[in-house]
């Protein structure tokens, strides 16, 4: 187990014209469960392969606990990696699959047997040990692939590259809780790549959001949800994602069109974008506090809650309300943005948050 430190690590597949992973410095601390969250093609897998050594980064150095491993091949890094679909030695039994990495490393026979038994117990594979691996269903195959990573005594980290894609939904929960269990029992560092926010949020101690080859925010799930540092995080996490409304700052007051919605302390005048999650948008029939006029365009009744779709000018805003909302399509309404949950973005990056007006403003 080790801290994995990336120093200025970046990778380009086309000789430096574009970066799949932009040069970044980041440390994966030992024994934590990370989720690496981002849309398809944002560089998640590339980053993972840099850590495991399948790719040598174009720029930067990789350290495991201070040891420079940038040039060390995969086999010398003691990394376990589970791929999107189960990768097994199909003609071997489950037992041989588990023993394979140890046999390649010339581990004594007794030790192999002990480790295999240990891992199979941990993963609940005991009853399958003698089965041919190709005859298992994908879920179990994926568990076996995981076991092949865990069987080595010194695993610096377990990397999981969207491992539950091929697994059917019912088994997903089982597998995910099994992963958590393993993390608790073994204390391995886990880095779990996914584009599914639910998976990331339920699984990880810390979620690292990757977009366009760069880390845009990292933090605990609640932190990402409640205070997104980047518009992308707001969009990507939450269902539906954060509302974004163009506004401008004038004399310390944030205005949408002509309506004042709050104060922006210490922010220079100019255009900003207001970001607020549907969960925190309040919708009322009359103007009760600084708010903007909107027109309700539709309501999705989701059972447990309603999603009210509205238009401010020509910009859609979604508000999540309690089930049985009285709003009707076509009706006029007012939207209010609570100060502590509404953020201001410039160039997609958070530059401040909305503050109460306290009597300031013109309207």
């Amino acid at each position, binding site marked *: 187990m080790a801290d994995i430190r990336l120093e200025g690590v970046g990778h380009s597949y086309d000789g430096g014209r574009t970066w799949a992973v932009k040069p970044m410095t980041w440390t994966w601390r030992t024994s934590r469960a990370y989720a690496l969250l981002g849309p398809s093609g944002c560089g998640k897998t590339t980053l993972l392969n840099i850590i495991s050594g399948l790719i040598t980064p174009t720029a930067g150095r990789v350290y495991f606990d201070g040891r420079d491993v940038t040039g060390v*091949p*995969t086999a010398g890094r003691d990394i376990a*990696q589970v*791929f999107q679909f189960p990768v097994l030695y*199909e003609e071997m039994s489950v037992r041989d699959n588990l023993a*394979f990495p140890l046999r*390649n490393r010339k581990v004594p026979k007794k030790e192999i047997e002990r480790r295999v038994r240990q891992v199979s117990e941990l993963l609940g594979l005991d009853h399958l040990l003698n089965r041919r691996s190709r005859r298992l269903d994908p879920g179990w195959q994926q568990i076996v692939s995981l076991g*092949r*990573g865990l069987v080595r005594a010194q695993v610096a980290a377990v990397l999981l590259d969207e491992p539950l894609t091929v697994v059917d939904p019912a088994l997903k929960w089982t597998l995910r809780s099994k992963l958590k269990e393993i993390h608790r029992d073994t204390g391995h560092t886990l880095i779990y790549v996914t584009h599914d926010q639910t998976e990331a949020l339920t699984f990880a101690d810390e979620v690292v959001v990757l977009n366009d080859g760069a880390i845009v925010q990292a933090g605990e799930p609640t932190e990402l949800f409640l205070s997104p540092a980047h518009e992308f995080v707001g969009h990507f996490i939450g269902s539906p994602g954060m509302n974004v409304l163009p506004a401008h700052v004038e004399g310390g007051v944030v205005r949408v069109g002509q309506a004042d919605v709050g104060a922006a302390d210490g922010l220079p005048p100019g255009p900003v974008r207001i970001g607020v999650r549907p969960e925190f948008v309040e919708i009322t029939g009359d103007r009760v506090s600084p708010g903007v006029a909107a027109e309700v365009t539709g309501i999705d009744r989701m059972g447990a809650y309603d999603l009210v779709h509205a238009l401010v000018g020509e910009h859609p805003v979604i508000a999540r309300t309690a089930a049985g909302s009285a709003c009707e399509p076509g009706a006029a309404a007012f939207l209010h943005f609570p100060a502590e949950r509404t953020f201001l973005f410039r160039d997609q990056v958070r530059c401040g948050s909305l503050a109460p007006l306290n009597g300031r403003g013109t309207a």
Partner: protein
Amino acid sequence: MTTERTAVAGGQVGGEVVTAAPAGPRETRADPRRRDNRAWWLVLPVVVSVAFTAVIPLMTVVNFSVQDVFSPSDRVFVGLDWFYEAVRRPENREAFVRTLLFSAQVLLVEIPLGVAIAVAMPRRGFWVSAALVLVALPLLIPWNVVGTIWQIFARGDIGLGGWTVNNVLGVGFNYTLDSTDAWITILVMDVWHWTPLVALLAYAGLRSIPEPYFQAAQIDGASGWATFRHIQLPRLRGVLTIAILLRFMDSFMIYTEPFVVTGGGPGNATTFLSILLSKMAVGQFDVGPAGAFSLVYFLIVQVVCYVFFTVLTRSGR
């Protein structure tokens, strides 16, 4: 033999036409008994052409095989006599053993060599096309031209290969006099001509293995050999089955190349079954024995292929 194979292939194409053609769209789906069977007419051209190219000629052979034909108007029914003779005749038996030995050697050399070439070929980049063209080149040359090329190439006086062996390596080599040399010439020629087929098939099989398998092998610390043995080879099972079947059939029925290079000699050293058969049928015009002989020949190929295919597919499950 060649017509026989095309016939089988044609039949399969016909079969696909039937399954692919839906019942007429106007017919009600509600009543499956009243299905439109007119699509069967589409099979008719295949049936007719197969009949004329394969079935009728084959029946002629069957007809010949039970008669002693002196002239078109003078023939005697002899029952299964020709079949007994075909199986008992020492010349036939020798040729059978010879052909079997040849096929075995062809498979033993070409399959591992083809797989080795496929593994060594580049997986991406410019050299993929270059390697593919280079490897496929021998496959594009007609059989009799291959024979001619090697007949000249292996000559001790003017052939580059034969001259090199004689004068540079200092080993006496003359395929027209020495039966071992003749055998080696034919074998090397077949390897040169057909290993590319195995290599291309194996290459296609290797290309279909997803990258993560190799990455997993790296992570597991597998050596190059272990990667080949546990990842690449198991995934080549399908294409290698086809390659072995094709190479067995083709080498067991080899005719043109040895006919051009050695004519079956020296002595009987390279007289394979097909050469013996054509001597009998065309050279001596013994159509009765030749008919029986070719039916037995046909049967052997079928049985070997069937057994082989069954064993390979069963063991894979």
